[in-house]
């Protein structure tokens, strides 16, 4: 029985597909569907082949899909070539810098000193670095933001500090804000994390304050933004 139907179907597919819509398991193909499979107990099976057979296909169309038996994964053909579906990943930007100096002031904030030159990794379709400590997200969604910075020669004594994220000069939240107290000159750092919902085109500014009157030695400054959803 399956043999008969598949042969008939195969024979009839070729002229049909050129002309209109096809339904399998349904007599009522939705107007928005080209091919509609309806079943509550049977699956759709992609062409299955080995990794070597997949890569041997001459000039596959962009958009093609197969199931790669060697990798045990569905694969799709993109503009860059074949990719497994496990490329699933969160678009992320990381900026990091070590060495150099950290400006301080007894009155005002500074942007974190991280610019395009300090991008370790980015998903450029999602993030643009607009200047020191300023990053635009190009799509709406839920973002995880984190920032940290450390200096190697924080002087003895107590002083206020903060590290926060701003939008158009408005505080979105502090990663950390308090007052530190070192007994002797020593390493010191601050960090924090936050989840925010952003609209497309929103610009995040990462700014810090360290109440001191001379530049300090930078150990690390890092900003990371990950799109979660």
């Amino acid at each position: 029985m399956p043999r008969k139907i598949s042969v008939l179907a195969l024979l009839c597919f070729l002229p049909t597909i050129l002309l209109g819509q096809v339904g399998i398991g349904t007599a009522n193909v939705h107007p928005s569907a080209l091919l509609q499979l309806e079943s509550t107990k049977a699956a759709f099976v992609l062409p299955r082949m080995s990794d070597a057979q997949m890569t041997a296909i001459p000039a596959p169309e962009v958009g093609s899909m197969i199931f790669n038996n060697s990798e045990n994964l569905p694969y799709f053909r993109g503009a860059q070539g074949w990719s497994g579906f496990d490329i699933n990943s969160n678009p992320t930007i990381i900026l990091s810098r070590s060495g150099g100096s950290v400006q301080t002031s007894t009155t005002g904030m500074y942007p974190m000193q991280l610019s395009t030159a300090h991008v370790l990794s980015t998903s450029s379709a999602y993030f643009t670095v607009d200047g020191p400590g300023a990053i635009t997200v190009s799509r709406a969604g839920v973002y995880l933001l984190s920032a940290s910075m450390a200096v190697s020669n924080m002087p003895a004594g107590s002083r206020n500090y903060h590290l926060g994220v701003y939008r158009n000069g408005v505080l979105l939240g502090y990663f950390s804000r308090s007052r530190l107290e070192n007994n002797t000159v020593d390493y010191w750092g601050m960090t924090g994390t936050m989840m925010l919902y952003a609209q497309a085109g929103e610009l995040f500014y990462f700014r810090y304050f360290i109440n001191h009157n001379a530049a300090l030695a930078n150990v690390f400054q890092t900003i990371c933004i990950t799109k979660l959803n």
Partner: protein
Amino acid sequence: MLRFLAIFLLSTGAISAQVGIGTPNPSPSAILQLESIDKTFVPPRMTNAQMLAIPSPINGSMIYNTTHNAMFVRTSNGWKNFFETSNASVVLNRVFAAGNGQVSTTNNNYTNFPVAASDAATIDNGIYSITGNGKVKVSENGIYMITGSFSVTNMPAGVRKYIIAIYQNGNLVGYLSRGTANLESTDEWGSSGSLSISALANDVIEVKYVLNNNGAALDARIFNMGITKLK
């Protein structure tokens, strides 16, 4: 004529059986089985604008989006990119007006973050329900990452103990942050942190804080909490 015949055959025959292309023996578990070791399956390919212009597509529809160079599937939440992780998330964020006195400071007393359903910047209703202040119920087993951040505008001078903590089903499971602040004069103060936990369906997650100020309420600046499903 051919077209009519084909549709007729498919709509009568295929309702009760399967279709194989490249195989005479489709698996009983398959409605449509494509067999080939040198040919691929090509879904409909279109631009993002063309995809969005499809009138009322049905759930389960799939296309290859040539604008994003990715497969898209239609779900009850709209078109979704297959190739982009989508972590179900909830973000509760509240910015407070001056002089609000919303921060409880009974010593060593855990208080829920004062953010409610009306403060949701975004919520995936399939996974999360907000059941009270700083209190979220999850509907699926999984690994969840939780972030919490809060600040006050008038932290007094002197030593003040603070905690940001996560409770799961009424039990303390971890601190996002814990320590003492020691300001020289009244000033803004804030802290943040994150923790990942394993949770079961219907677990209740609460984000709480402690800020010791002998019960004299302080003014909240911003309270923010987020939960995202990592796995």
